[in-house]
């Protein structure tokens, strides 16, 4: 398979008056064409910042080190005026957490689509663009797309708006769709619909997806491979099912255990917790960021950050782990 994204040793720091906020402290991964990569982490883990850097959405004062290659092209070197708009609209696209806040309330859907589609098809007439919009809405399974084009954002439900966001994102035939917590604000039944829709679209268009969420259960459902982020560092990288059944890092395992399994009940089953809170990104302690909360902590853990190393699992697919004392056995 060929590579779509290659990120090497990405450091992102925000110089604040209180000190330097280290949002990412060295992230590396590669992603293949048509792959769904899940990025899991809690608030402040750096998961959103990592994709915002790829879309060059971070403010100018941000210090970015490392490299981001997209189909071999150096994203950080793209010219802001000449190259960036084309990269953002036709190679990549992004959908966000709150679809309701991402639309202009005074634009009808037709106008919204026309504006986006015109960028990609400057020579076409309004009629032709409208036909394309209808086609896109049909692809994301909005009922009666012709009629709905004249509606305004407030006339749609949250789930429908997220579908329309996806349709807009597809307008430029992106190679990569970045979905940053796209279902967090939606109801569970609608969330399930959006997940199935994304899986269908990936298959049909052979489009890569980066799916960001705090919900490991959900990411395991959609992703091929998962990165677990904590304190700006990749803690574990593994194929989704492997990570779900046999999380090796104490943090990954803690995250899975912290969600009650369906069918368990407080009267008979204990709910595991991870004690403590997330680390301070301004003055991080030396050593593994998870060490203060970890039940398997060793003396060395608090002295030096362990390396992210490939684990020999005996299987063909690779697992990378940043831990000197991981779990070796599967769950239950």
């Amino acid at each position: 398979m060929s590579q779509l994204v290659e990120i090497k040793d990405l450091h992102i720091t925000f110089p604040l008056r209180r000190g330097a906020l280290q949002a990412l402290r060295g992230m590396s991964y590669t992603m293949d064409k048509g792959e769904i990569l899940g990025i899991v982490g809690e608030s402040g883990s750096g998961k959103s910042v990592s994709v915002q850097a790829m879309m060059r959405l971070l403010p100018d004062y941000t210090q970015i080190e490392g490299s981001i290659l997209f189909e071999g092209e150096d994203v950080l070197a793209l010219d802001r005026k000449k190259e960036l708009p084309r990269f953002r609209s036709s190679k990549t696209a992004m959908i966000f957490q709150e679809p309701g806040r991402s639309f202009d309330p005074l634009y009808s859907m037709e106008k919204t689509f026309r504006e986006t589609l015109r960028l990609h098809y400057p020579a076409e007439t309004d009629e032709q663009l409208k036909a394309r919009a209808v086609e896109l809405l049909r692809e994301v399974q909005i009922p009666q797309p012709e009629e709905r084009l004249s509606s305004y954002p407030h006339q749609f439900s949250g789930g429908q708006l997220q579908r329309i966001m996806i349709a807009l994102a597809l307008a430029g035939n992106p190679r990569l769709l970045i979905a940053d917590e796209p279902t967090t604000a939606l109801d569970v039944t609608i969330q399930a619909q959006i997940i199935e829709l994304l899986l269908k679209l990936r298959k049909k268009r052979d489009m890569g997806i980066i799916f960001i969420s705090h919900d490991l259960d959900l990411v395991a459902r959609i992703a091929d491979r998962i990165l677990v982020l904590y304190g700006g560092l990749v803690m574990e990288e593994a194929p989704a099912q492997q990570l779900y059944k046999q999380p090796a890092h104490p943090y990954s395992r803690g995250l899975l255990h912290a969600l009650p399994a369906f069918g368990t009940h407080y009267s008979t089953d204990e709910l595991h917790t991870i004690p403590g809170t997330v680390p301070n990104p301004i003055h991080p302690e030396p050593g593994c960021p998870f060490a203060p909360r970890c039940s398997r902590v060793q003396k060395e853990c608090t002295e030096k950050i362990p390396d992210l190393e490939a684990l020999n699992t005996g299987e063909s697919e690779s697992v990378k782990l940043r831990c000197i004392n991981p779990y070796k056995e599967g769950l239950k």
Partner: protein
Amino acid sequence: MSTACKDCHLELKDLKIRFPLEAGLFARYGRFVYAVNGVSLHLKRGETYGLVGESGCGKTTLARLAVQMYKADGGEVLFHGKDGESHSLMDLKKKELFDYRSRVKYIFQDPARSLNPRMNIYSILTAGYRQSSAWPGDSAARQEAEEMMVTVGLNPEDLDRRPADFSGGQRQRISIARALIMKPELLICDEVVSALDVSIQSQILNLLLKLKDKFKLTMLFIAHDLTVTTYFCDRIGVMYRGKIVEEAPARDLAAKRMHPYTNLLYNSIPSRMDESLETEGYEPFDSTQPLTGCPFYHRCSRRQEDCLKPPEFREVELGRRLACFYPVT
């Protein structure tokens, strides 16, 4: 005053409320949002009752009706206090309502927005307490506040700090402390863990379980997540479009779901999802229309013509009530 069940703590009887869609002078003539369309349920003493449903189904409105934040258009709220007295909330005078609200406390979803950023934690904890007849005076209250901080897992020395100094999980602990300091009998938890990180969510759930035992609390727990609710609650009511469509003990509901909507919720749990799920977008229900038939009619895959008439909410097996003509199992 009523013939109600013996160990009931709170009874909601056929509650209804609609909100005018237009404000001001035209409100009377305008259209309405039918938020709660006749809900009856009861909370037994010491029990945790879970309300599950998606946004707009009326679960928060129902909880607010239980503390008279809104005045119901119809129905009744009965409270059977610790002291053996029973009250109908509709008859309470202002002073009595105030007293009632110190016995039934409400915890909100978003701790960041429900704590006044300009007050220190001590003032936040005691703001309501100070107004009540049980107010013990500042020095005694200070000591109680310190004890309460320890109870919810915070440092008592932090009483003089402000909400901004705390993380989301810690703020939710403060909200809980504020509710408990007046020694309530009943706690209404409205999506208290939804805004929190996964690892913090489990800390708060465990804390609530501990406090429930310690203070012998009855709880109404509102959530949209079936997994968390079936774990945390004793009995569960599933709401859709202002109606309870199924009610059962949590373990029974986890084992078997009879209403098609409950089943859809179950199949939407991430680890259960598969390709068989509907991916087609549907038209959300129009809550400005008065409810006539089954609330789930427009989305249901099992609907028949008679579902246009309202199904009766009746006991179908021990402890399970259901409103459906064509249940799943």
